[in-house]
C-alpha cells in the first residue's frame, strides 16, 4: 500500500500470482444469469409482445468455484445446457459474469487485455478462426502477426503440429473444401501456434468419426504433456475424458456436481460391482434368485449387481454353482454413473431453481 515509487499498474498481475501460487486459473462464486423472453404461442401474443415482454432470469451458471493448476488437463462433462460453454466463454472473456470473480494467468478475462489474449486460445467446435475461402496456411500467417510469433518459432511450431496431425498436404487447400475432421485439426493448429499457456476446448470432437476422434485425442495428449499446457475441455463424450483427462468436473444445471479423478468417481458414486456369469445353458430364474442379488438374465448370461464389500464372500459360492463357464467382475461403466449423476443433478436443481425465475 505504501508504494512511494511510481507504480506500473500493468505489471501488477505478474508480480503477485494468484493465491495458490501455482493456480493458473481460479474461479469463485462465478454466476451468469441470462434474461430470456418468453413468447407465448399465437399471433395475438406476438403482437402484444411488441409492446410488453415478460422476461425471466435463467441462471446458466450458479456460483461455480474451481481452481486449476499449471499443466492440468480438466474435462468438464455435462449434458446440453449444463453451462459448460457459458463457463468457457466467461474464462475467455467473451462474456462478463453477473457475480463472482475469475483469474486466468493473473488476469480478469473479461477485461480482455492484449497481454492476456496473447496467452490463451479458445477453440469452439463450430466457430472457426480459419478463413473460409483461403488455405489454412494464410490464416496461420495472420496468426503469426497477430500473436507476434517470431518467424523461426512460428515455422518450427507449425511444422511440428502439422506433422503430428498429418495435415501438411491440406495446408494449401481452401478451408471450405475440407471435411469437418480436417477443419477441426487445422483449427487446433491455428489455436496452438502461439503456444498458449491455457487452452479452452469446447466440444472438440463433436461430429467427428471414431478415427478422427482418436487422432485428436492422441494429438492433444501429446501436445499437452509436452508443453505443460493447462487445458479445459468440455464434452459430453466419456471417451474424451477417459483418453485425456486426469481430472473430471461434472456439471449440470450450472453447478459442479463432482470434481475429482476419474477413478474416484467410481468409488464415490457406486456401491456395487457388475458380475457377469456365463452359463452353459440359460439358467432358471429361481436358481439365479437364490444368489440373493439383483440379477438380470440374458439368455445364458446372468448379470449380477453385488455390493463391493460382499464380493469376496459371495463369489466362491456363486462359482461353485453348476454350469458356470466364465465370470467377469467389472466396475459400473462410467457412462452409467455419469448419466445417473446428470439425472440426479437435474432433479435436485429443478427443485431449487423453480422459485428463482423472477422477472426483473
Amino acid at each position: 500500500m505504501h508504494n512511494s515509487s511510481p507504480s506500473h499498474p500493468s505489471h501488477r498481475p505478474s508480480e503477485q500470482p494468484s493465491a495458490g501460487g501455482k493456480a493458473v486459473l481460479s474461479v469463485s462464486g462465478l454466476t451468469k444469469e441470462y434474461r430470456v423472453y418468453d413468447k407465448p404461442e399465437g399471433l395475438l401474443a406476438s403482437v402484444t409482445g411488441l409492446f410488453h415482454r415478460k422476461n425471466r432470469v435463467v441462471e446458466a451458471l450458479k456460483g461455480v468455484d474451481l481452481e486449476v493448476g499449471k499443466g492440468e488437463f480438466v474435462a468438464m462433462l455435462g449434458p446440453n445446457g449444463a453451462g459448460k460453454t457459458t463457463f468457457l466463454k466467461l474464462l475467455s472473456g467473451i462474456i462478463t459474469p453477473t457475480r463472482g470473480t475469475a483469474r486466468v494467468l493473473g488476469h480478469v478475462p473479461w477485461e480482455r487485455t492484449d497481454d492476456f489474449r496473447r496467452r490463451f486460445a479458445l477453440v469452439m467446435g463450430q466457430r472457426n478462426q480459419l478463413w473460409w475461402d483461403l488455405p489454412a496456411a494464410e490464416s496461420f500467417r495472420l496468426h503469426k502477426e497477430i500473436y507476434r510469433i517470431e518467424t523461426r518459432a512460428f515455422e518450427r511450431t507449425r511444422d511440428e503440429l502439422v506433422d503430428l496431425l498429418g495435415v501438411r498436404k491440406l495446408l494449401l487447400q481452401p478451408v471450405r473444401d475440407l471435411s469437418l475432421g480436417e477443419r477441426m485439426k487445422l483449427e487446433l493448429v491455428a489455436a496452438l501456434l502461439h503456444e498458449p499457456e491455457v487452452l479452452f476446448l469446447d466440444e472438440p470432437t463433436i461430429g467427428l468419426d471414431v478415427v478422427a476422434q482418436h487422432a485428436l485425442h492422441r494429438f492433444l495428449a501429446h501436445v499437452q504433456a509436452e508443453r505443460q499446457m493447462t487445458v479445459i475441455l468440455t464434452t459430453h463424450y466419456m471417451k474424451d475424458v477417459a483418453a485425456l483427462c486426469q481430472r473430471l468436473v461434472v456439471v449440470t444445471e450450472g453447478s459442479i456436481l463432482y470434481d475429482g479423478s476419474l477413478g474416484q468417481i467410481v468409488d464415490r458414486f457406486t456401491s456395487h460391482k457388475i458380475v457377469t456369469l456365463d452359463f452353459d445353458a440359460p439358467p432358471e430364474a429361481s436358481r439365479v434368485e437364490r444368489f440373493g442379488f439383483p440379477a438380470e438374465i440374458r439368455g445364458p448370461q446372468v448379470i449380477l449387481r453385488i455390493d463391493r464389500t460382499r464380493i469376496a464372500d459371495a463369489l466362491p459360492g456363486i462359482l461353485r454353482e453348476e454350469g458356470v463357464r466364465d465370470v467377469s467382475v467389472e466396475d459400473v461403466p462410467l457412462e452409467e454413473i455419469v448419466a445417473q449423476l446428470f439425472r440426479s443433478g437435474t432433479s435436485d436443481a429443478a427443485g431449487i431453481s423453480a422459485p428463482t425465475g423472477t422477472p426483473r
Partner: protein
Amino acid sequence: MSTTAGGRFAADQGFLARRLHAWRVWWTMLVICLEERLVYRGDFILGTLMRFLPIVTQVFLWTAVFGATSSGSIAGYSRNDIVAYYLLTMVSRAFSSMPGLAGGIARGIRDGSVKKYLVQPVDYVSYLLAARIAHKLVYYAVAILPFAGVFLFCREYFPPIPDWSTIGVFVISLLLSFLLGFFMEATLGMLGFWFLEVSSIVFAYMLVQYMLSGHMFPLDMLADIPTGIPGLSVAGLVRFLPFEYTAYFPAAVWLGKVQGAELVRSLLVETAWVVVMAVACRIAWWRGTRRYSAFGG
C-alpha cells in the same frame, strides 16, 4: 528479430515498436483480405457491370426532362452538365459506398462469429478497414476499364479537364468520402449489438443517403428551397450533414462548382464528419461489446 530479451514476445515495447507491430498486423490483414476478395473475381466483374445500369436510366430520364422544357438549362445545369455530374457521382460512389458492410457486421454479431475478435488480440475496426480497402482495391482493378470506356465515350459532355490543384482536391475529397462512408456504415452495422436486425435501419439510411448525397439529383438544385429558418436553404442545411460528401461534393469539386473559401470550409466539414463518425464507430464497438458480454455472447 535482434533484441527480443524477454522470451518470444518483446514484453516492454516502446510506443513506436507497438505502432510498427500494429501496422504489420494491419498490412498482413490487408494482403489476406485481398487474396480472399480475388477468390470471387467472377462475382466482381458482374457486379461492376451492373453498376452502370442505373446511370443509363438516369441519362434517359434527364434527356426526357430536357426535351420537355424549352429552356436549355435547369437550375444552372445543361443536359451535358447533368450527364457529366452523374458520371462523376458514380466515381464518388465507387469510393464511398460500402456494399454489405453494415449487414455483414450485424450478421457477425447475430451468428456469433464476432467472438473471434473478442478472443484474439486484434482490433476489429482496423480489420474491417483493411478488409474494405482490399475490397475496394480489387473493385477498382476490375472497374477501371469499364469506367475508362464510359468516360472516354462521354467525353464531350464534360467541361475541360480542371487544373492540377482541383484534381488534387478532388482526389482528397474521394479519399475522405471513402473514410466517411466506411465509418458511417460500420457504425450502423454495430447497431446490431442492440437490434437483432439492422436491415431496415440500413434501408432507411440508404434512402436518406440517396436523396441527400446528391446521388438522385445535384444538390444545388435545392438552393432556392427554404427550410423555414431565415437565411438557410435546404442546400445550405444539407451542406452541414455528412451525406453530400459521399456523392455530390467530389463531383462538384471536379466541375468547379465549389471554390475558394467555400471549398476549404466544405473540406473542413467533411474532415470533421470523418472524425466524428470514426469516434462514433469506436464508441459503438466499445459499448456494443460490453452489452454483448453482459447479455449474450
